[in-house]
C-alpha cells in the first residue's frame, strides 16, 4: 500500500481553553496541489502552524511518507521536508537573496566559515529552477513583493522540501505575477512536490488546485476534486449557506466635489488627473507597481506630493500631512492594517476613537460616555465580532480588524474615503459585509476611492474605474460594458489615457 505524502489526522488544538482545531484532517499526495479554504477563524492558519511545528498540537498525528513526525519547531519541520511560505514574509530586508535562502543552514567551508561561492552558486541553481531572473546578490529590500515571494519559495526549496505550504501567496500579487507564481507551482508539483495552498481567492482555484479541503469553525468539512467544486459549492461549504454575488447596478451619483489635477511624483506616478463625485465608488486597479498606493498616499499627505493641485468644492486645498487631509474630510484606510491601520495592543474602543480625540473632547478632557457611545455604536453598526470594546485589536480576526479601521474613519464623518485593498486577506463573509458598508456610505453621499488588485471586485463594486499602469492612468470611465480582459489590457498598456 502506498502511503500518502502527508497525512495529518485527529489534530486537536486549544488556545486558552478555546478549541481552534477539532479532529482536523488533511491528506496530500505527491505532486498534488491541495487548496485549503475556509473563512477567517476556520482553523486553516492553525492547522498549517501545527503541520510546520510552529504550534504543538494538543493531540493528533502527522505522518510524512508513512512515518510519524515529531517536530518541535519549524526548523526541524523544514529539515524533515515541510516548509511554509507565509502571508507575512519572514525575509530579512538588509540581507542578500542568497543569505536569506540559506539563513540558518548556509554552506560551510572546511574551516566552518560560510562558503560564499557555494552559497551563491546553490542559490543561483534554485532560482534557475524557478526560472527567476532574481540575482542571488540582490538585497531583498529592493525587491518587489512578487520577487520576495519567489525568494521565500527558493528558501523552502533550499531544504529540499517534499511539502510546500503557501499561505495566501497571491493576496498581494497582480494578475500577471499570480500567473508566474502558478507556473512555478505547476513545475514544482510536476517534480512530485506536494503543495498546500491557502487562498481566499476562490476564482483562482480551478486554475491551479487539484483538490480542495474545506474548513469551517475549526472543523474539517470535506475534500473535493477541483472538477466537482465550482465556486458556489465551495462557498456553500465554507459558510454553511450560500452568498449570492451581485452584479453591479448603475447608480445615480452626486456632483463632483473633489478633483485632482496633474499629480506627479518622480519615479512613482505622473500627470494624474481625476475627479470624485459625491456618493460614488471610484475603483482604481492595475498591476503591482502601477503606482496606485503611492498615488493615494501622496493625496492623503502620508507621503510628499511634489507636483499637482487638489480641489475640494472647486477650491484649491493644500494637503501636506494626514492631519490636514483629515481636516479636509478625507480618510485613508491603508492596505496594511496591522502596521499602519491599528494600534494592535490597544482596545477596539481606543482604536476607533483615535481619529476623533480632538473632536470629542469637552474642555480639556475626553468624556468617557461619548467615547463609549461612539465605539459601541460602531461595533453594532459594523457588526464587529468581539466580546466588548475593551478587547484588544490584535485578538480580532482579519475581517473584524479591517472593520475597526473602517470604523475609526467613519467616526470622522469623512466626505472622501480612500480604501487601499479593503478586502485583502479577509474571508468571504466579512468581504460581503464590507461591500455592504461601502454601498451604505456611498448612499449617504461619501465619495469612495477603492484600490483593488482583484479585478472582479473592482467590476462588481465600482461606479467608475481607473486603471493605472507604470504610474499613469491608462483608462478612466464607467464600468459598464467593461470586461476583465479589457482591464488587463489597459493595465498592461503604456499609453496614457490623458494623452490619448
Amino acid at each position, binding site marked *: 500500500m502506498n502511503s500518502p505524502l502527508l497525512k495529518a489526522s485527529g489534530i486537536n488544538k486549544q488556545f486558552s481553553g478555546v478549541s481552534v482545531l477539532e479532529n482536523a484532517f488533511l491528506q496530500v499526495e505527491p505532486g498534488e496541489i491541495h487548496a485549503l479554504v475556509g473563512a477567517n477563524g476556520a482553523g486553516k492558519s492553525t492547522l498549517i502552524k501545527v503541520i510546520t511545528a510552529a504550534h504543538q498540537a494538543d493531540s493528533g498525528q502527522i505522518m510524512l511518507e508513512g512515518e510519524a513526525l515529531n517536530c518541535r519547531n519549524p526548523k526541524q519541520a523544514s529539515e524533515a521536508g515541510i516548509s511554509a511560505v507565509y502571508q507575512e514574509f519572514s525575509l530579512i530586508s538588509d540581507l542578500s537573496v542568497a543569505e536569506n535562502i540559506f539563513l540558518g543552514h548556509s554552506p560551510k567551508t572546511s574551516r566552518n566559515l560560510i562558503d560564499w561561492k557555494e552559497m551563491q552558486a546553490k542559490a543561483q541553481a534554485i532560482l534557475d529552477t524557478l526560472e527567476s531572473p532574481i540575482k542571488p546578490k540582490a538585497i531583498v529590500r529592493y525587491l518587489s513583493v512578487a520577487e520576495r515571494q519567489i525568494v521565500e519559495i527558493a528558501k523552502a526549496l533550499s531544504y529540499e522540501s517534499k511539502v510546500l505550504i503557501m499561505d495566501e501567496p497571491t493576496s498581494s500579487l497582480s494578475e500577471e505575477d499570480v500567473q508566474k507564481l502558478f507556473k512555478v507551482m505547476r513545475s514544482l508539483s510536476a517534480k512530485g512536490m506536494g503543495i498546500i495552498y491557502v487562498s481566499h481567492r476562490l476564482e483562482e482555484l480551478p486554475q491551479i488546485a487539484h483538490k480542495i479541503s474545506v474548513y469551517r469553525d475549526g472543523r474539517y468539512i470535506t475534500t473535493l476534486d477541483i472538477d466537482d467544486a465550482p465556486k458556489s459549492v465551495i462557498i456553500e461549504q465554507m459558510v454553511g449557506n450560500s452568498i449570492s454575488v451581485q452584479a453591479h447596478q448603475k447608480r445615480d451619483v452626486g456632483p463632483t466635489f473633489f478633483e485632482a489635477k496633474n499629480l506627479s511624483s518622480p519615479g512613482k506616478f505622473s500627470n494624474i488627473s481625476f475627479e470624485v463625485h459625491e456618493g460614488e465608488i471610484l475603483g482604481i486597479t492595475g498591476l503591482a507597481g502601477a503606482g496606485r498606493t503611492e498615488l493615494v498616499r501622496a493625496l492623503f499627505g502620508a507621503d510628499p506630493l511634489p507636483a499637482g493641485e487638489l480641489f475640494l468644492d472647486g477650491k484649491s486645498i493644500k494637503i501636506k*500631512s*494626514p492631519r490636514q487631509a*483629515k481636516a479636509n474630510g478625507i480618510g485613508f484606510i491603508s492596505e496594511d492594517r496591522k502596521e499602519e491601520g491599528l494600534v494592535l495592543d*490597544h482596545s477596539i474602543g481606543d482604536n476607533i476613537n483615535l481619529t476623533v480625540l480632538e473632536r470629542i473632547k469637552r474642555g480639556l478632557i475626553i468624556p468617557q460616555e461619548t467615547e463609549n457611545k461612539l465605539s459601541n455604536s460602531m461595533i453594532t453598526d459594523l457588526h464587529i465580532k468581539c466580546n466588548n470594546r475593551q478587547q484588544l485589536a490584535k485578538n480580532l480576526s482579519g475581517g473584524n480588524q479591517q472593520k475597526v479601521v473602517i470604523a475609526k474613519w467613519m467616526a470622522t464623518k469623512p466626505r472622501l474615503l480612500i480604501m487601499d485593498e479593503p478586502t485583502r486577506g479577509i474571508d468571504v463573509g466579512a468581504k460581503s459585509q464590507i461591500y455592504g458598508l461601502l454601498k451604505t456610505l456611498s448612499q449617504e453621499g461619501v465619495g469612495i476611492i477603492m484600490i483593488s488588485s482583484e479585478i472582479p471586485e473592482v467590476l462588481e463594486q465600482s461606479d467608475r474605474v481607473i486603471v493605472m499602469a507604470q504610474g499613469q492612468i491608462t483608462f478612466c470611465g464607467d464600468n459598464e460594458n467593461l470586461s476583465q480582459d479589457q482591464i488587463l489590457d489597459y493595465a498592461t498598456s503604456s499609453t496614457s489615457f490623458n494623452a490619448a
Partner: protein
Amino acid sequence: MTTQANKINPGTDPVSLKLVTRFLLNNALYVVLAILVVSLTILSDNFLTTANLTNILRQVSFQAIIAVGMTMIIILAQIDLSVGSVVAFAAVVNALMIKAGIPIPVALLLTVAISSLWGVISGWVTAYFNLHAFLVTLAMMTLIRGVTYTITGGYPVSGLPMEFLQLGSGYFAGIPLPIIYMAVIYIVGIFVMKKTPFGRAIYAIGGNSEAARLSGLNVSQVKIAVFAITAALSGFVGIILSSRLMAGSPELGISWELDVIAAVIIGGTSMFGGSGRLVGTLVGVLFVGVLTNGMILLDVNPYMQQVAKGLLILGAVILNSLKRES
C-alpha cells in the same frame, strides 16, 4: 498509534488556575512591596514610623517627579538620558539668577522654561531627523553637562539667600514640600494621561506611530512636547534640590537617568511603548525607596545593596515579559 499528547491533568481547572496566575502577574509588584513592608516592620522597629516613612517619601520625591516625564517618554517608545544633566543645569542657572538679584519666583519660572528648551531640542532632533532618542539624548546628556560645567567653571554656585531654602526644605501642613510637589505632579500627570487627547495620543504613538500619524495625529508635536515636559520637570527638580543643598552644583543628578528609567521599568511600563501607568511608576519609585531604606536600617553592606537593586530590576523586567506573554 503514537500521539502527540500534551493533555492537561484532569484534576486541575486550567481556567481558574490561569486567572490566579494572571492576577499574581498583574499585581506582583504590589504583592512583593507589601511583603517587603511587612517584613521590614517586623525586622526593624524604626521602619514603620511617621518620621521614617516621611523620610522615604521625601528621598524618592525628586526622582519620582522626573519619572512622570520619563514614563510618558517610555510609553512613547523613546528614552531620555539627559534628565540628570538638566537637573544640574537648572540648579546652576537658577542659583546664578537668584544671585544676580532676580526674584526667586521669577528665577524659578525662567529656569524651568529654559530647561524645557533642552527637551524641545531633543524632541525636535528626534522627530525631524527620525532618530532614536537614545542617540540624541546620549549626546544631549554630555552636551548639557558640559554647558553646565562651563557656566560655573566647575564650581558649585553658593551664597544663596536664606528664603530660597524654604522651596525645598519647607513644610505645608506638616508635610515636606517635595512630597507635596510630587503628589500634585502625579495627580496632574495621571489626569493628563488618562483623560486628555494629549495623553491618549502618547499611548497611540507609542503603540504604533505610523498608524497614529495616518490617523491624523501630530506625532512630531507630541514628541517634542513630551521631551519638553520631562526637561521642565527635571529643571524643577534641580531647583528644589539646590534649595535643599543651598548651592547649585554642576555635579548634581549624575547617573540619575538610569535610576529614573529603572523605576519606570519596575513600575511595569514597557520599553516597547504603548503601555504603562504613572501609578505603576510611583510604586516602582517607592519600591526602590523602601528597599534602600530597609537595607540601610538593617545595616546591609552598601555593595550588597547594589546587588539587591540590580536583582530587583532584573526580576521586574522578567515579570513584565511574563505578563506580556500570558
